[in-house]
């Protein structure tokens, strides 16, 4: 490298440089102090300062009339910086605008494969540990499971609520892959029904009142928790304490609009000193002509309920169709369902099928729901050989 001094010496003494240099100096002085700027040219020969983006040009597809970019007049406060995470948009959409394409929402036989969300709804009067254990044993991927609970505003409801909240806290603060997608806990608005003992609950006269209250609770729970991403709704009673771990996969594989499993009860038989099982839910039935005759003669506000000698309906009950040696996935047509373990496609509820709290074709609650689904042209099915077990109630 030659020294700076020598470099300048050479420059000074070279004639070309000493001629061009003053010219260049004059040109730069002109561009800097005299010219008004924007010397940069874009593709079409215009200065790129005048460049227009596609949405700013007139009469394009993007917006037929106005094309000025408008500075927003209002803005939502953002506490977490946008820099951090693009997943903030998953939680709260930008500008609070959300677009859902419900045409893409489907309920198919391969529910887990298609990542379909299942909403498990439970009207809860009492919290049973076995119920919760059973729920945690379900093998359906938890990231697609949502839970919904509704609790009556009674003292027993308070107890159930505190136990439920403790259990929920434990699971939702666990590892991320153990958490459920969402859990909704509601406190009932309408009047609850507070007679809990099994004997009292099943007295005929109070059935209408009790089932109307339960229907109200179910509706409140359903329409508050159903969302645009739900594909299936599984109604699971709070006293169902034993189900196969593959419950949801098994039931969705039938791909039926309304599907009910057979609810039995395991009890300790004092006579044989062994655990036996017996049918429990008699609300899964097929209609019979006797029942229809009975209905015609009843007053408009009366309801038909199963399992009572006073109202002999002679309906075909799925509970009596259990065949231990039969296939577990055998189906049968039904006209009425109970709410013990019923899988319903979310579309059926969205179309308007709910649990009537008033006598609807002389039916109420889950059986009224089945009738309503039939009026909406859906078919009801049951699984006679697929058992789930109700808790044994000790009559103290």
């Amino acid at each position: 490298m030659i020294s700076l001094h020598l470099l300048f010496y050479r420059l000074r003494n070279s004639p070309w440089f000493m001629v061009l240099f003053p010219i260049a100096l004059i040109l730069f002085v002109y561009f800097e102090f005299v010219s008004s700027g924007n010397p940069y040219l874009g593709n079409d020969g215009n200065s790129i300062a005048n460049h227009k983006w596609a949405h700013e040009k007139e009469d394009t597809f993007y917006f037929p009339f106005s094309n000025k970019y408008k500075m927003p007049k209002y803005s939502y406060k953002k506490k977490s910086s946008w820099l951090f995470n693009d997943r903030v948009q998953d939680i709260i959409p930008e500008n609070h605008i959300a677009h859902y394409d419900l045409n893409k929402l489907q309920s198919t036989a391969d529910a887990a494969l298609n990542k379909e969300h299942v909403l498990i709804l439970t009207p809860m009067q009492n919290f049973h540990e076995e119920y919760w254990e059973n729920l945690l044993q379900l093998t359906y991927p938890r990231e697609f499971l949502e839970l919904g609970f509704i609790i009556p505003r009674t003292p027993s409801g308070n107890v159930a609520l505190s136990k439920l909240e403790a259990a929920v806290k434990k699971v939702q603060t666990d590892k991320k892959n153990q958490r459920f997608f969402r859990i909704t806990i509601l406190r009932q608005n309408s009047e609850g029904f507070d007679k809990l003992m099994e004997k009292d609950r099943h007295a005929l006269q109070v059935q209408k009142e009790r089932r109307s209250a339960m229907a109200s609770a179910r509706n409140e729970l359903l329409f508050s928790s159903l969302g645009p991403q739900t594909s299936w709704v599984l109604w699971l009673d709070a006293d169902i304490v034993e189900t196969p771990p593959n419950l949801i996969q098994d039931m969705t594989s039938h791909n039926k609009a309304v599907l009910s499993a057979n609810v039995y009860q395991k009890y300790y038989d004092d006579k044989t000193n062994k655990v036996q099982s017996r049918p429990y839910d008699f609300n899964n039935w097929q209609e019979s002509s006797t029942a229809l005759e009975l209905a015609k003669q009843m007053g408009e506000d009366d309801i038909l309920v199963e399992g009572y000698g006073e109202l002999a309906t002679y309906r075909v009950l799925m509970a009596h169709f259990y065949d231990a040696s039969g296939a577990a996935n055998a189906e049968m047509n039904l006209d009425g369902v109970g709410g013990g373990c019923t899988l319903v496609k979310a579309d059926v509820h969205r179309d308007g099928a709910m649990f009537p709290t008033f006598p609807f074709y002389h039916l109420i609650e889950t059986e009224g729901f089945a009738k309503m689904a039939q009026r909406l042209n859906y078919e009801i099915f049951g699984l006679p050989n697929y058992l789930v077990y109700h808790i044994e109630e000790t009559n103290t």
Partner: protein
Amino acid sequence: MAIFWGLKKKLKKADDDGYKLPMSHSKLSPKSKRLNWQNRKIVSWMILTVMVLILYVVLSGVARGGKEVMKTVGNSMPNYNVNFLEEDAYYDYDFVDIDPGVIAKFDEGVQHYLITQFGSDVLTPNDNELFEREYNMLLSSTVENYDLSRFKGSSNGAANGEHVLLCVPLRDAEKVLPLMFKHLMNLTYPHESIDLAFLVSDCSEGDRTLEALISYSRYLQNGTLSQVFADMDKAAAAQASKGTEKLYLKYMNPDYLKSVQEAFSPPFHENYDKPFRSVQVFQKDFGQNIGQGFSDRHAVKVQGTRRKLMGRARNWLTANALKPYHSWVYWRDADVELCPGSIIEDLMSTGCDVAVPNVWRPLPQFLSGEQPYDLNSWMESYEALELAKNLDEDDVIVEGYAEYPTYRVHLAYIRNPDLDPKEVLDLDGVGGVSILAKAELFRRGIQFPAFTFENHAETEGFGKMAKKMGYRVGGLPHYTLWHIYEPSDDDLRDIAEKERESRKVEKNDKAS
């Protein structure tokens, strides 16, 4: 450097015969011009400084030019002050701010976090407080806890901050979207307590309702939609001055047209531009293939099927959009032309569980100027109940057609513009143009039946179901909304006739 050096050598070749005396720089040797040497130093320094200066100027010029280009390309509007939305209602329940960074800390589980962060130490009070907050944030991101009795709804919803879900079913509605949005912005009920929900269904080919809806919503949530509409109206006015596209406007009552124009011109109420709490757009096609023109919609044979499908669409919207914290649900049709901005407060103050106003529409003057539009709001009559007993289970009774003589008292016919608009009547069936209902009804299961419920469907079935479950359904006969006028085929024929006649008269006048 080498080039200069080479050039210099060539030019100097003539002078030099290759021999140069060594030059010395000692102060003792005689100098031809003392200034020469100093000149050279000065000139060197000058060249150096000028070169540095030029370099600096070039680079800063590039930077500045770049900045200017960015500025002009970005926007050419004067600086606005962006208002930040402060109201709590925008950020409660679902929209509570969740920090994904904080939540990500607990991905391995809270126990794991505590052990790795703090080991076996007991947390200090400060740490404990911070931990509690983060723990609650983690829980609230997936667990929702609501007490439904807090969202019952009272007559003074605005003061109590009650959330309203505003539902609008849309189908092929691109042309009425500006009208609808203007009405929405005009609502005086606090915008931070209103959630908008739209259902776009069964649009025909090439219809851009969904795209237009979404882009209008974006402007709406920015607060700039009124400016967009001002531009659009100017453009439309410029086009309209060239020739009337809507011929029937010539025959309408000029007072009515004037009142419409006044209604939509500024000044607007203070919170006109304020964004709403949220906008949800649902898209679902039900396979409906009845046309959306006036004559198509109103033929009696298709009414039953059409009403059931509309009931289905409405149910889909409530089922998906209703949240536990909503106290009211307001159903609104997109094609209402004149409506007071305080409608939600007015309907709420009636104290009914379901409230509907009266809906009329304007007509051309040769057809009596105005007409009741919504005949679905009525009180049940004995004759109608008898008629229903003789009908099939699936038959739907529709009002306003000779095939179903129901002799019901319709809210629409009771209207008297001189009487008190606050008067309330008890009804059995309601029409769907503008319904305010407590969310409690929807949560209890009352729906717009998509099947025939007591020989009715959709909104009338809704009214019947609400009455059956013991709720109060009220209508305001003297409080009127005006629906837009869409000329039917008969009306268009009449107008064409009149046009021809008037042209003949003009021709005769000219000839004579």
